[in-house]
């Protein structure tokens, strides 16, 4: 592992620790530094990874946005599902250059510094306001905040914890029944 990568990873970890109030179990963080594969069910803040796409404060800001949209409540939140790493990977490996550029430009306009200075309730209000603005305006391409939201939902509701805590995914349904009362379904259903 090259040194700059280690430094970058430590920096991300430090910032995420700050962001989540610093309550990070040190051994978990160190273990992750060694092995660096995000583990299912690990504490949210321990989800460290080497960003492939994010630069500067992007990882920190996107992590905070995902956390504001889908926070941990009595059920798991976006950070439990390693959504920030998912968003980073999607931007790096799935999004085309024009969509990446739009994301970067939108990030600059989002005002990450002012956002991060707020407490949790303040961040939530900031995200909501920014969503309202984005939805009210006409855009040539998808705005930063809507891309981040879409990826947050996609990452969470295709993750094991996101699916299993919120709906019933039946791997092998065995049969199709076309028209049943929804009241006959035991749990919320995973819809394709």
């Amino acid at each position, binding site marked *: 592992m090259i040194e700059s990568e280690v430094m970058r990873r430590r920096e991300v970890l430090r910032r995420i620790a700050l962001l989540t109030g610093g309550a990070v179990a040190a051994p978990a963080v160190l273990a992750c530094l060694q092995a660096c594969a995000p583990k299912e069910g690990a504490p949210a803040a321990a989800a460290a990874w080497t960003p492939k796409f994010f630069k500067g404060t992007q990882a920190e800001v996107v992590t905070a946005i995902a956390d*504001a*949209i*889908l*926070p941990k*409540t009595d*059920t798991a939140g976006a950070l439990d599902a390693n959504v920030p790493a*998912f968003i980073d*990977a*999607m931007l790096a*490996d*799935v*999004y*085309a250059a024009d969509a990446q550029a739009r994301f970067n430009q939108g990030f600059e306009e989002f005002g990450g510094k002012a956002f991060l200075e707020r407490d949790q309730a303040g961040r*939530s209000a900031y*995200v*909501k306001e920014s*969503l*309202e603005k984005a*939805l009210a305006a006409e855009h040539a391409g998808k705005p930063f905040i*809507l891309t981040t*939201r*879409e990826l947050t*939902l*996609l*990452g969470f*509701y*295709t*993750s*094991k914890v996101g*699916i299993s805590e*919120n*709906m019933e*995914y*039946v*791997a*092998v*349904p*065995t*049969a*199709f*029944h*076309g*028209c*049943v*009362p*929804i*009241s006959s*379904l035991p749990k*919320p*259903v*995973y*819809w*394709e």
Partner: protein
Amino acid sequence: METNSFDAIVVGTGISGGWAAKELTEKGLKTLVLDRGRMIKHGEYPTALKDPWELPYANRITQETRTRKPVQSRTGYPTPANTHWFVDDLDHPYTEINKFDWLRGYHVGGRSLMWARQSYRLSPLDFESNAKEGVAIPWPVSYDEIAPWYDKVETFAGISGSKENLPQLPDGIFLPPHDLNCVEQEFKLRLDQKMGRKLIIGRCANLTAPLTHDESPQRGTCQARNLCIRGCPYGGYFSSVSATLPSAERTGNMTLLANQIVHELIYDHEKGRATGVRTLDAQTGKATEYFSKIVFLCASALGSAYILLNSTSSRFPDGFGNDSGELGHNIMDHNKPGGSSAQVEGHLDEAYTGRRPNGFYIPRYRNVGKDKRAYLRGFGYQGRAQRTNFARYNDSTLMGDELKKAIREAGPWSIGMTAFGEILPYHENHMKIDHSRKDKHGLPVIAFDAIVRENEIEMQKDMRDDAAEMMEAVGYKNVTVRSDNFNVGNSIHEMGTARMGADPKKSVLNKYNQVHACKNVFVTDGSFMVSSGCQNPSLTYMAFTARAANHAVEELKKGNL
């Protein structure tokens, strides 16, 4: 040479090659079956059992895939769950004189592993239209002649569907139909009431009940996972790998070789017949010759036409069996310019369980009976209604627990459908060999020049307008018309490159799929099609292949080949 000699050689293992292998081996012929791609055995489906969270990138196509597989990506298919079934376009290039989508899977089973499984018969109307309308040449086969072969292949493959008594879409031998869901049932009723149009459940090669024969013990019933494209370890849908090749294997008469690229037929001038094929090993480049009494080309309409065009000799300077000049011409596909979608109000207390690997079908109604349009032929629609998922909250301001709770509820219903229309055979729509470019094996590539023309463009208007009109007529909200720029090939139903006909001056094959000028070569993939219908064609390839194999064995017995 002894060890390389067989009774029959089958080139390709897709829908048609699998059937040729099964029929010829079951009739006792020692048969060599060649595929240009890697070996796949039933059960070897690496992503088949992966849950959503086990697939990277939420199963979206990556930029790396788009870079290596730019053509395959035009369809949206090569996602992380499926990309191993689609060729690397950089390794397998071709020339597009006009933009042409050529979707391929180079492995044993070919595209029978990834096909959409929709299985419809052509109708008497389809077999008669060319003759009645003076289009191209008449079909040399009638519906009544092919009907028993449809019976045979449907029974073996297991096709689910409903009997409808529609003259333009003959019933077959069906396993029980899938259910239409609640919204689709209502759409069916209202379409019939308001417009007199039929909506039926799709007919598909998924086992909604056990097969009615015991020839495929390796196959179980469909488990309603709707992950068919990854390969089904349950054998719930028909593919060469799950169905026909295991039957061929059990006869003990099949030698199946992977990684063998057939690039040329061997022609014996004195005997006036083909004596075998020349191959290159896809991995080592080693050249080999294999010999046989008969050859079945089942390498796909474009693949088989390539082999024929590439097999030149003093007898066939313009390609094998190409006395008519029609080889490589008359490329057809299905016209697919879009469709419609809408939101459906109500039905919030209704749902479905399981994931149906099938949708609804609106059979052709244009130019049927008294309906007369400015264009020839018609189209059908394939679609489905469903409850919407979490993505309906992408463009929303809902956050936190409120958002989680909202997403746990089933979303409102949406409905969508896509039109598939007939494309007429035009001599001008053709492929040829581009000798200026070579692939990594040193073989020249294909150049395609095929476009939709006046009749198709005229039909496209109806295909989009009718889609919207039907959804509006039944009262759906926010009806959206989808308008796609269609390239020939994008429906992955390419056909017609070696059409059959009664007149050898105007066709490449006779009515039994034999090359007119060399009767021991049979071509039974989509090449033989004289018109395209608007129905998904694979079932028709199965039926004609089984019939041709039967004919080949009879002719061999009579000493005619």
